[in-house]
């Protein structure tokens, strides 16, 4: 009866195909980049690296990127952890709504967030002007440029990862341990250090890696706000200047920085003992905090919620203003539907939105096609071959978006056997391919969770009733895991529909995505159109979010 004993030829074939795809589109392209960085005119040289490290400007840019990464970790870590602690220990009523609000920055593409922030806090932003008038100043009270402004935007979008991971980890905190430490005389500081931190440590380390990587490779903030040069912006510059070798070197340096930090964090994590999740833990009882403390934390949370809602409100409002009114009036108030009418009336203007919808859908479909069977095999039949395939599928998680794009450019600008000897760069499919690559790790892990939570006995029951493996898969496994799988897919759809970093490097005339159009319209002073695009994308994202909530409410709570 053992399923393990029966030799099934489908699995090895599936693994081979998946491995081949990963090698062809993820691993080999990376070697193309290494070759592009080290081979000039057919012979090996480290000249380009030399050029990079000899130039203090280049080195400064690399340092800037690393500093931005560290700043991101620090700000997001403090903010996200504090919010998670507040929600766990102090929040009482309306916890659910607060939680969803705190998660919402995740649901808006980064590029739209940046634009919304500029509309609010930029030189002629609504908030800036309001403050200027309120304080009766002759000019803007601050300049929304450079490191601080960029970090502000990134922190606002990335704290969610810390918040969510730590919040989930705190669910496994045994509250009796907190009380035990308290009754032994420990102060709250000590309780945090000795009891709470060991429980959330794995989540903190994971979030550190995630936010560092996104800080180091962030593109939309540095590119649109400016005043602080980082690797991601210089990569695009090098590529535009046709210096692909330098772009490759810069991408490799960015990769090296994020890998170094990842390894460092892993090493630290392994060196110290963490606490296993305890599902029988005593539930947390909401604390009775000192009224002053409670008030202080409430204010912090309220400010955070305001920061979250303000940008959305601002771009929705401004998208109904004429571009002239946005540009000229101190507080725009000339209402119009023109921006939306233009988008829907002119096919050329609508096309980028359709492109992005299509490409994100394609990417998620392809990603699910690859990861669902793989996740099933990995969960149910762990094996050495499976571990290799899993490693290959998770590989893109270690690659910054700019590097994935540069790899594809290096590998597919000319013929490549993996693309049946058709150059892919410049064709429509290159962006869906890039999106798929980026989505693979998240899709795989969310599918593994969905399939792992399906009780094995359900499957065995089906088999014992005489159903074959295929029938069991289609009639038992698929329907029972579909909500979790689809919810993961929808989340990736939201990520990809506004993807900007890879898009900026890879788009062409056939596949101009909405993120690019939002930026170019903004730069060409078609602000109204740009914001209307943004609102439409947000609408799509929220509709998708509603789908997730219907499918898999437990995903976030």
């Amino acid at each position, binding site marked *: 009866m053992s399923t393990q004993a029966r030799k099934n030829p489908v699995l090895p074939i599936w693994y081979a195909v998946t491995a081949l795809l990963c090698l062809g589109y993820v691993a080999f392209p990376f070697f193309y980049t290494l070759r592009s960085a080290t081979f000039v005119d057919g012979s090996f040289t480290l000249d380009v690296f030399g050029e990079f490290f000899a130039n203090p400007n280049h080195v400064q840019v690399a340092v800037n990127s690393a500093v931005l990464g560290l700043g991101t970790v620090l700000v997001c870590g403090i903010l996200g952890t504090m919010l998670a602690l507040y929600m766990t220990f102090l929040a009482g009523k309306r916890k659910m709504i607060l939680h969803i609000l705190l998660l919402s920055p995740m649901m808006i593409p980064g590029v739209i967030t940046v634009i919304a922030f500029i509309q609010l806090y930029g030189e002629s932003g609504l908030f800036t002007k309001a403050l200027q008038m309120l304080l009766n100043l002759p000019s803007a009270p601050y300049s929304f440029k450079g490191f601080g402004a960029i970090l502000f935007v990134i922190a606002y979008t990335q704290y969610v990862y810390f918040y969510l991971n730590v919040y989930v980890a705190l669910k496994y905190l*045994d509250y009796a341990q907190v009380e*035990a*430490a*308290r*009754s*032994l*005389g420990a102060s709250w500081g000590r309780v945090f250090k*000795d009891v709470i931190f060991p429980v959330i440590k794995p989540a903190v380390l994971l979030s550190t890696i995630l936010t560092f990587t996104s800080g180091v490779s962030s593109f939309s903030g540095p590119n649109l706000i400016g005043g602080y040069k980082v690797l991601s912006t210089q990569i695009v510059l090098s590529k535009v200047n046709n210096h692909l070798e330098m772009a490759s070197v810069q991408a490799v340096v960015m990769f090296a920085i994020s890998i170094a930090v990842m390894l460092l964090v892993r090493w630290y994590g392994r060196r110290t003992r963490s606490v296993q999740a305890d599902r029988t833990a*005593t539930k947390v*009882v909401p604390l009775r905090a000192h009224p002053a403390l409670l008030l202080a934390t409430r204010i912090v949370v309220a400010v955070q919620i305001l920061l979250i809602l303000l940008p959305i409100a601002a771009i929705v409002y401004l998208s109904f203003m004429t571009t002239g009114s946005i540009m000229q009036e101190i507080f725009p108030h000339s209402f119009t539907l023109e921006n939306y009418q233009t988008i829907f009336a002119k096919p050329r203007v609508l096309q980028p939105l359709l492109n992005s919808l299509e490409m994100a859908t394609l990417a998620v479909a392809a990603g699910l096609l690859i990861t669902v069977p793989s996740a099933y095999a990995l969960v149910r039949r762990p094996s050495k071959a499976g571990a290799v395939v899993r490693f290959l599928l998770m590989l893109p998680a270690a690659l910054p978006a700019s590097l994935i794009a540069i790899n594809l450019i290096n590998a597919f600008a000319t013929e490549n056997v993996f693309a049946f000897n058709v150059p892919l760069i410049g064709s429509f499919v290159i962006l869906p391919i890039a999106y798929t690559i980026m989505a693979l790790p998240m899709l795989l892990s969310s599918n593994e969770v969905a399939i792992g939570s399906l009780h094995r006995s359900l499957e065995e029951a089906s088999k014992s009733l005489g159903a074959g493996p295929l029938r069991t898969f289609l009639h038992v496994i698929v329907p029972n895991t579909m909500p979790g799988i689809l919810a993961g897919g929808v989340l990736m759809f939201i990520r990809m529909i506004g993807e900007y970093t890879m898009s900026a490097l890879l788009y062409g005339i056939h596949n101009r995505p909405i993120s690019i159009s939002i930026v170019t319209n903004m730069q060409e002073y078609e602000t109204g159109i740009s914001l209307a695009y943004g609102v439409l994308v947000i609408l799509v994202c929220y509709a998708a979010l509603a789908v997730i909530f219907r499918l898999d409410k437990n995903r976030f709570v």
Partner: protein
Amino acid sequence: MSDVVLQDITHRYDSEDVLKHVSLTIPHGAFFTLLGPSGCGKTTLLRVLAGFIVPSAGRVSIGGKDITDLPCEKRNMGVVFQNYALFPNMTVRDNIAYGLKVRGLRRNEREARTKRYLALAGLEDYAGRHVQELSGGQQQRVAVARALAIEPDMLLLDEPMSNLDVGLRARMREEIRAIQRQTGVTTLFITHDQQEALSISDLVAVMNEGEVLQVGTPEEVYNHPGNAFVANFVGTANAIDGLQLRPEQLALTQAGRGGTTVRIEQVSFTGPSYEYLVVDERNGSRYTVLEKNLGQGCTWSVGDVCDLVQDAQGRTDTP
């Protein structure tokens, strides 16, 4: 004498009073047990004593000093939790030393005291182990040693043995009692097992639905239950003529001798005795009667009709 006094404690969760005007005095050095059914508010009362929650009304004092608003880390009370709540990231030694470290004890004193309590709990051989690598009984001893090491003014134990099997439970009960005698620390022990409560306590308080119904020595509570709930919760009781009588205080005799006429409805064997369930067919009342197992089988069988009489000596007449 530093007696612990709870005065008119009321605690409200949401809209429901979980504790209702509870007043108790726990004498210095006593082993005091709170006995009551699940959900009656035992843990809540312990949490009030430990200082984890401030009661909605009422005062708590030790030795005449009001501690109602004193935060838990200043109370010097050792708590043993139902699930032990050992720190999984620390060894046995570190768990026991934790409270001493927090109190800033000097290193050599800390080590000496840790050693003493390791020995008291019989854990010397396990000092370097992580707590996940211990059995349930060993974990419990770590929890007790950890609570005792701070030399608390009071030891609070919340159903510390509910995770253990019957044999281990009885052994641990004796160990806890022995340690308590040795240290003389005032102890509040929570359980919903009446047998456990009767066998180890100096004093027992019986609770139900947030109220303390009766406080007394195990004998008082068992022999003279104050009301039907106490009588039924602490052992089995038969209500006869307004009295609560224990099964061993009743006997069955041949019909026609002047008792209540009953019919045997069920007989069960419990080892040391036989337990009869009998019914008075005139009014449908049921009673439970015990008969000692003398190794010769039971006297009555199902369907027999006999008389129920009060029998203070616990004798059973033969037919």
